[in-house]
């Protein structure tokens, strides 16, 4: 029997496959395609204190082996999440990770405080959303910003605390260390790379918001590199993501140092990607003689 369970500083996952925030809504839609009980966890659409309308469309552009998105944190707000979504998600045996974002440190603390008393399993701080002008972009791009928001949230947060890092920085290890030093239980990375696409026929940016976040296979090498660097720089567990489309990709992240992985964009093309990835990881473990998924984390050979 393979042991696929991972324990991310108190966040127990039955397997390392997590749906990435913003690509999976609150699980309702994909639950029509597969059994959510199969997932290790679900990171829900980024939550703000008040509902947010999001950015003007178009909000997506296709780019080589990837997409740009500029949703802009459209969400029903944390209260609606608690009332309408937690009860639905709790029907499944999967970890609920509340991805949260705010404009101010106070915002983050309020949301974390509110969520600490609810039946969720962990909080993921989105300090790195590139689509929103104020707020979280600012925090995620400096070590001080990350320290400030993480240590403040840490004080009020009674759940395992994951800090999600932006790749749009000079030195990702500095950001990870700032999160660790400020009390994060784990870091997840990468969020999207800031990008842009232009329609040369209309001579206009494709996105209503001009710029957006790049995700999908195109970003994988950058993400793997950052996961590798970060997992060497910090002691807390690392959750890896960015362009995972199949088990081979997921294993690449795990070998680079990730304890668990998130998958997002690939699900737009293949709604079964999470389940298929899990199956593929099991096969790989069997073929390569691994009994526990945790043995695979960082298991690069020299």
């Amino acid at each position, binding site marked *: 029997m393979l042991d696929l369970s991972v324990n991310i500083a108190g966040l127990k996952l039955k397997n390392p496959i997590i749906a990435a925030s913003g690509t999976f*809504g609150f699980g309702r*839609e994909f639950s029509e395609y597969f059994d959510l009980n199969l997932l290790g966890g679900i990171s829900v659409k980024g939550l703000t204190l008040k509902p947010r*309308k999001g950015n003007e*469309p178009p909000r997506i552009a*296709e780019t080589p082996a990837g*997409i740009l998105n500029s*949703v802009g944190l459209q969400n029903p707000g944390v209260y609606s999440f608690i009332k309408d979504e937690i009860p639905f998600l709790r029907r499944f045996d999967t970890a609920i990770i509340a991805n949260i974002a705010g404009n101010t440190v106070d915002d983050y603390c309020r949301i974390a405080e509110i969520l600490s008393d609810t039946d969720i399993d962990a909080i993921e701080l989105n300090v790195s959303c590139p689509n929103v002008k104020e707020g979280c972009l600012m925090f995620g791009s400096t070590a001080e910003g990350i320290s400030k928001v993480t240590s403040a949230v840490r004080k009020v947060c009674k759940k395992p605390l994951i800090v999600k890092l932006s790749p749009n920085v000079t030195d990702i290890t500095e950001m990870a260390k700032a999160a660790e030093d400020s009390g994060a239980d784990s870091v997840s990375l990468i969020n999207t790379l800031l990008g842009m696409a232009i329609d040369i026929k209309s001579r206009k940016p494709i996105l209503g918001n001009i710029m957006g976040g790049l995700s999908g296979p195109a970003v994988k090498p950058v993400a793997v590199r950052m996961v590798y660097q970060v997992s060497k720089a910090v002691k807390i567990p690392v959750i890896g993501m960015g362009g995972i489309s199949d088990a081979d990709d997921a294993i690449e992240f795990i070998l680079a140092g990730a304890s668990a992985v998130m998958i997002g964009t690939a699900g737009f093309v293949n709604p079964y990607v999470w389940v298929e990835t899990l199956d593929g990881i099991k096969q790989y473990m069997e073929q390569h003689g691994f009994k526990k998924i945790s043995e695979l984390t960082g298991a690069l050979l020299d």
Partner: protein
Amino acid sequence: MSFNVVIDKTEKLAEDIYFLRLKSERVSGKAVPGQFVNIKCSDGLNTFLRRPISILRTNPVENTFDIVYMIRGKGTRLLSCLNSGDTIDCMGPLGKGFTLPEKGEKICVIGGGIGVFPLLFLLEKSIDVNKTAFLGFRTKDLIVLQKDFEQVTNRLIISTDDGSFGENGLITKPFLDFLETEKPDRVYTCGPLPMMKTVAEVCIEKNIFCEVSMEQRMGCGIGACLVCACKTRHNDDYEYERICRDGPVFGAEKIVF
């Protein structure tokens, strides 16, 4: 579950406009007018996202459904290289369709360009209804499925922007003229935004039931990612609804054009 469907028939209808008949019990059995399928136009990375294409018609007996698409870019171009017997990966049916008319009602559809396709399915499924279709095309050579529309309408008015066939100019013109003397029970429209806006506004003004089918770039196609935003009215405010799930068909009065 897999989304592979086999191509039963392909046909070039006009320059850059192609017809596909696909085998799928799921789609042919469940689809309603206004819904769409989301197609992976190539394996792998050449086109990353799926492409939404409206369902033109279903044949639940033969387990087939039809689509017609225009080559607009990389994805639709790759699609046009496929032949019958080939397999494509196609999710659906997706989205919320049109509200079908009641028996005895009088309806109008106004379509422009590639927007005419979902309207054919609606017309076919509108039984014992008096049906008038207004279809606008850029030019004569782009007129497709004229016979098919004739068969399912009581009256068919075609216009071309350049006057090369039918009425000269925008299709909204004959439709507005028509409204001078007639009052349909329901109006349905799909096509370019300015056209739909004109239709929606006059229907709202005249208090005619009107549904519009919206278009937007999509990600997941099933309602999870919130990229396919459509600005809709909510009391004095607006929200962004999902075209792929809350639409593509919306009540005209909801849309903030």
